[in-house]
């Protein structure tokens, strides 16, 4: 049995070695040998994956716990560095390290010839280290280490090509917006500490504490404070998982290399918010208000981002908004306490979205950096493997029956309808009683509508990219080539995942493996909020509705885009007019709520307050100078006169002393 501490240690080691290589070789013109660096870069995540796999098969049901050492030990606060390997972290770790290894392999091909080759892989390894720590830790503070660590790596990798200041600005934006969420996380932890001491930061202790509260019927005492903590944690999650209102950074984050978008901004990092909700499931389960907030935010995000995805011309931006939208689904599921369903969607989403991103990367690679879909088209014949991978992943994301997304999305929609307990409380208007209106139908309908839109914009992406005829310039057409094998292999493996990952929990055909592995972790939390009365509905109805939504969306996309004349691309790929208003809704919100007030405050500090202080300082200085000048006038020019004056003064002094009889 290997120690849990080894799993994060491998990528950390990789990061240190690669970082050292990057620094040492920075002076040379050519850079280090790519084969050597690439091998090292893949080796460490692969070792980690092997370790996780080994552990996963031998894991006892209760999980493995391991405390490495003490971390912070001060009065009032004591936290250990400890790891917890249970059903939830097993699933997360398996796909984090697995997909991480695949994408690292892909990156070797994608980053070929880049000057920062070794640096890139050092960052990727550092990212994997942080992500593993995030998932594997047994307390919130250590999770926070991973949480900020992945944010930092995301910053480093978005701004990887730092010669272009636009990339740097996107990176800064990502970090700062994430920081806002992180502060929520921090304050949430502090809130927990005030409730029950620093021991509560440990997940096991937290679960026990919640259980104790439930058993002792102290809910009404703790829930108000705990709700504050819950909202704060949720703010942290909205930052990391790009939910309303902290979602603006994710589309901008596409400035980074495409494998980074696949790994960090689609498959792993952005789902850590969902992971945290599931991890703290037992806490959120007793906080109905927070759960309702989560459902509403998730619903709005899913819908808004899906519509925004329709308006994008940049292939990566479409995928970014699609990611936000899918994350919205996951949050909706978490909001109705269906944590296993949300994690299942995280799992399947990781496969198909990573495949889509890698496919997009291969397309961009083939077109020598072109990202505007209006300049693509007809690539099916030129890059068949990439196209197949993308199409399989597309079928998965729209929820085509049998593909991975079908199972997970279907499950979420079903749970939304069955579990959602939100309602508008009854009220009296014009003397007539209006009964309380349950909102589960509304939530379900929005989810379904979003599924339709998802199919439309994804269909648009596939049609614009792979079908029709090529719309780019003639000379660029000749250079189009299929990606090298090192890039294709990971894509194909992920495509397999996109097709078959769903069969781990195919509810309709009776496979419940996934639910069972997660049951020890999130089971209790889910059991707490089981709806009291719901009409029993046949799950096949939901499956059928979901399929119809997918087919409808695909049909619409076919109708609109298959034969449409695509307007020639001019200038930037950013949407314009009303589309831009919708897309940049939250950017402008941030601008008016966050950036401008801070700038105004800074301006006041700098130009008003500081100048006033400067003036006060100058005034005091001036007064001192004036007084000094005044005193200086007593000093006359002639030395002899001074002597005479001082003698006179002496005489006067003696006279005074004598005349007053020495009283002075």
């Amino acid at each position, binding site marked *: 049995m290997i120690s849990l501490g080894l799993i994060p240690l491998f990528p950390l080691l990789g990061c240190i070695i690669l970082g050292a290589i990057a620094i040492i070789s920075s002076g040379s013109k050519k850079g280090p040998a790519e084969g050597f660096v690439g091998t090292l870069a893949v080796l460490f995540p692969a070792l980690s994956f092997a370790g996780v796999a080994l552990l996963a098969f031998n894991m006892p049901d209760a999980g493995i716990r391991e405390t490495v050492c003490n971390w912070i030990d001060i009065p009032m606060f004591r936290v250990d560095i400890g790891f917890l390997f249970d059903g939830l972290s097993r699933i997360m770790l398996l796909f984090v390290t697995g997909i991480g290894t695949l994408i690292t392999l892909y990156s070797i091909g994608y980053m070929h010839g880049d000057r920062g080759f070794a640096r890139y892989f050092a960052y990727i390894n550092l990212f994997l280290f942080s992500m593993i720590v995030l998932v594997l830790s047994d307390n919130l*503070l250590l999770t926070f280490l991973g949480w900020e660590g992945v944010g930092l790596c995301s910053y480093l990798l978005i701004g990887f090509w730092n010669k272009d200041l636009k990339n*740097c600005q996107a990176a800064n934006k990502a*970090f700062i917006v994430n920081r806002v969420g992180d502060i929520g996380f921090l304050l949430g932890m*502090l809130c927990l500490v005030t409730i029950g001491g620093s021991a509560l930061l440990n997940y096991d202790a937290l679960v026990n504490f919640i259980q104790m509260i439930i058993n002792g019927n102290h809910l009404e005492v703790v829930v108000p404070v705990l709700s504050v903590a819950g909202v704060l944690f949720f703010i942290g999650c909205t930052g990391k998982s790009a939910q309303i209102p902290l979602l603006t950074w994710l589309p901008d984050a596409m400035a980074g290399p495409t494998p980074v978008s696949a790994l960090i901004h689609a498959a792993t990092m952005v789902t850590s918010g969902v992971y945290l909700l599931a991890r703290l499931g037992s806490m959120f389960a007793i906080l109905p208000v927070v759960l309702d907030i989560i459902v509403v935010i998730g619903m709005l995000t899913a819908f808004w981002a899906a519509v925004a995805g329709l308006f994008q011309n940049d292939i990566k931006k479409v995928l970014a908004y699609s990611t936000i939208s899918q994350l919205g689904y996951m949050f909706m599921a978490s909001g109705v306490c269906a944590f296993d369903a949300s994690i299942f969607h995280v799992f399947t989403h990781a496969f198909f979205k990573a495949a889509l991103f890698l496919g997009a990367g291969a397309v961009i690679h083939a077109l020598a950096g072109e990202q505007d879909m209006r300049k693509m088209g007809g690539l099916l014949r030129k890059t068949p493997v990439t196209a197949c991978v993308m199409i399989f992943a597309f079928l998965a994301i729209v929820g085509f029956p049998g593909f991975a997304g079908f199972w997970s999305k279907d499950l979420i929609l079903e749970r939304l309808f069955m579990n959602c307990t939100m309602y508008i409380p009854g009220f009296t208007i014009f003397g007539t009683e209006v009964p309380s209106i349950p909102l589960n139908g509304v939530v379900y309908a929005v989810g379904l509508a979003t599924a339709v839109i998802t199919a439309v914009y994804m269909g648009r992406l596939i049609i614009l990219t792979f079908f029709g005829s090529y719309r780019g310039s003639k000379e660029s057409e000749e250079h189009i080539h299929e990606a090298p094998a090192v890039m294709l292999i990971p894509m194909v493996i992920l495509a397999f995942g996109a097709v078959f990952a769903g069969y781990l929990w195919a509810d309709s055909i009776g496979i419940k493996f996934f639910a069972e592995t997660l049951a020890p972790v999130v089971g209790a939390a889910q059991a707490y909020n089981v709806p009291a009365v719901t009409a029993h509905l046949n799950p096949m109805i939901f499956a059928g509705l979901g399929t119809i939504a997918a087919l409808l969306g695909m049909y619409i996309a076919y109708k609109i885009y298959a034969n449409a004349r695509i307007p020639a691309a001019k200038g930037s790929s950013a949407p314009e007019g009303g589309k831009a208003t919708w897309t940049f809704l939250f950017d402008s919100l941030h601008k008016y709520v966050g950036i401008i007030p*801070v700038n105004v405050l800074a301006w006041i*500090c700098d130009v008003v307050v500081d100048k006033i*202080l400067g003036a006060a300082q100058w005034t005091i200085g001036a007064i001192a100078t004036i007084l000094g000048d005044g005193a200086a006038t007593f000093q006359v020019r002639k030395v002899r006169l001074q002597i005479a004056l001082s003698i006179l003064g002496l005489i006067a002094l003696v006279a005074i002393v004598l005349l007053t009889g020495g009283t002075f």
Partner: protein
Amino acid sequence: MLLHLLVLAPFVAAILMVMTSKDDPKSSSRLAILMGIIFAAMSVALIAGGNVATDAIEWFHIPGCKGPVYYYLYSHGLAAWMVFLSCGLSLVALISARGITTRSYRNFAIGIFSLMGAMNGTFLAADAVLFFFFFEAMVIPAAILIAGFGGKDRMKAAMTFAIYTLVGSAPMMVALWYLLTIADNSMLISLAIALQSLPEGTQTTLFVCFLLAFLVKTPIFPFHGWQAITYAEAPAPLSAILTGAMSKAGVFGFIVWVLPIFPLSMSAISCMMWLGLFTAVYGALMALRATDGKKLLAFSSMGHLGLAVAAVFSGSEAMFPAVLVLLVAHGISAGALFILMGIAERMTGTRELDQLGGLSSKNPVFSTLFGFAGVMALAVPGTAGFVGEFSVLLSLWDMGPLPALVAGFTLILSAAYMLRFIQKVIFGKQAREYEEGRRTSPLEGVSIGVMLALLLVFGFHPAFVTDSLNQGEEIEDAAAAQVLSEAAINQGNAPMTEDEIHQLDSTLAAAGFRDDERASIIAQMKAENSTGADEVNENTVKGASDDE
């Protein structure tokens, strides 16, 4: 012995430096760095050695005061770490100054050594007058160094710095003198006892006088006028020392002198805390708008120290380790950033942010260090800054969620200005053509690397830092136990109280002694009592001086 060495030997080193050649910076820098290493090693030994104190040597009498002023040094966890900062940063400054000062390196080293001695004295002094002496003495070498080696505006900067800090501590001198006239001696405890006997109005006045000195030194909001220009105009290695070690004297003064002496009312505490928080926000906002790299760092330091002061006055149990870790982390990271900024200025010839840029492709090693240091200053978990800021937030949360929220807001702002800073300096394209100056020397690179590694080590194992406080408590406990046991021994010949004598009388009566016999025995006892009492008094006085 170590304490004496740390305080006095830097002055000896400064004198030694006088003897080296003025025109040969190579040989003088070798000697200076060698001595710097020795001092740094001694400061590490001081931390490892736990709490130590020297004998109290009588220094002089201030006319009008009851007791003498002692030359008396005492090292506890906080002081030892501050001494470490002062020695360590001085060493790095001496290393880095080789590339920066084109003028006489020797004179620079003399100044740095005397500054270091004064700082060590400030942190180690256990006598209020001694503390004040060193507190003032710090200003002189610093001002001279600024005036001698600074940038374009150096004379103005030196004057502003000297006048601000000297004027700021003048009220403290008066207050201290006033306290000394009524206290037994100038030790902390006697000052605190003396203060108790004063009316409340006087106490408040004295409190404000003491505060003012430390508020200016830290600096806290309305008194920060000297800081930006001083840090900007001072040579970068000196700025590193000023912000990394000297400005800590303000926070140190709050913790070691203000808190124990003055019984603080709740309103004073919360007032100070909000002032600290306001400074933190103000510094961060000013840093957002700064166009000069060193000024940006200066305001960033102001923000961090504001946070530290707010934590000092949070009254939380976790305050001590929180502030200590925050100070150590800030000292190292701000010091490293200032020195790196100095290198950038040396290479490009400017410190205007808009004129910099593109260093990451030109000089990868430098930019790696720079980016690394910048990220460390962001308090990313795993660095010492995070442990410090998190525990500070924890302390502030004790006062209520709002202070913690404000502190959280400053963390967001700090991310904003620091990322802007990193982007402006090392990313993007070169803003203008220039002749490149001297690059990072290997020794510089290594020393900054060590500083950054220390931050990581303290981030993952803050016990290195926080344990020095616990150790202090244990030793204090041991000392207390010793005092208690001594008291128990003294009990043997302690004066008997009237009750005891009465009891003795009755037992004697019961034993059948006659009245006159009893009277004589009791008279004997009483006589012994009075002499015994004298002896005891002498003993306690001795004991007290031994403890000191």
